């Protein structure tokens, strides 16, 4: 199985946010409030966590016509609350969205995608959900090649990007039967 998930170390960094004050999050300053290109920052009272969704190369996705596919995956990195936020894209301004709520829990939604005809399976983290005393902040991904991070409040991830959507993006236009197992890990 190809593991394209957050590492144990990254997951531990997220777990450490629980119980802290969710001060704000940073994202691209765009007219569309529901997405940020490749990067967001979760700021708490003690530490910041930069979450990225950059594409990486996975040679197993090579095709017979010579293309090598890239897969976007979540990663995260800690930084101090005083570190200036730099968006992923050049020439883009960022904005800080104030939250000021207490983090009660963090969940990671992951999909295991099994494609028997091609003899491979992939495990990907699809959403990072920060639950506070008031709301549920969903930072999620969509297609395997999409670097955008989608931001929703109080929405169920299954309604944002369903298992059927995942199957559609992997079934090669109906050629493969794709099995998707979705699971949620509460940190």
């Amino acid at each position, binding site marked *: 199985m190809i593991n394209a998930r957050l590492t144990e170390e990254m997951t531990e960094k997220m777990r450490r946010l629980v119980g802290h004050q969710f001060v704000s999050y940073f994202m*691209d*300053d*765009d*007219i*569309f409030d529901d*997405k940020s*290109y490749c990067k967001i920052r979760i700021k708490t009272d003690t530490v910041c966590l930069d979450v990225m969704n950059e594409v990486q*190369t996975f040679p197993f*996705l090579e*095709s*017979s*016509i*010579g*293309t*090598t*596919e*890239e897969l976007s995956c979540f990663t995260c990195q800690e930084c101090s609350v005083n570190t200036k936020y730099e968006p*992923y*894209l*050049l*020439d*883009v*301004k960022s904005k800080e969205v104030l939250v000021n709520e207490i983090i009660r829990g963090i969940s990671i939604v992951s999909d295991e995608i099994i494609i028997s005809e091609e003899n491979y399976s992939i495990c990907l983290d699809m959403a990072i959900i920060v639950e506070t005393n008031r709301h549920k902040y969903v930072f999620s991904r*969509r*297609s*395997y*090649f*999409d*670097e*955008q991070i989608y931001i929703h409040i109080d929405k169920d991830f299954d309604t944002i990007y369903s298992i059927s959507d995942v199957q559609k*993006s*992997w079934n*090669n*236009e109906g050629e493969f039967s794709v099995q998707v197992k979705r699971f949620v890990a509460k940190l």
Partner: protein
Amino acid sequence: MGAGYHGGFGRTEGSRNKPNYTIDKNVQGMKKYYPVTETGKFGVKGKNQRIIYSKDQFATAEDFFERIARGGEQTKLPNGKGIKSVLSDGTTIVYRVITSTASSPAVEIFISQPSSIVDQKIHFIKEE
């Protein structure tokens, strides 16, 4: 509102997204050059991606991007990897000049609202 990259790309117009440039309008204007399938996809089937073959894949990719991203607000990807464009209906189009596939640029389309086309990644490959 983001600062945006206002220089445009190639022969594109400036980069502030203009109210009337939606994905459906842009697709309508390019259909005769780049046909769209009934399922809302460009090119031919590849492996979880679409393929457009061309004698000059870089020129074709650039031309395709200029047409589909017309009127969008453009920003550069880091390290010279390409350009992102957002249309007024929220559709995001990413032109990757550099991809993991040697000499094969790609255009990715992410739809925000119901449209005649669907999310897809199109690789441009040299026609032998």
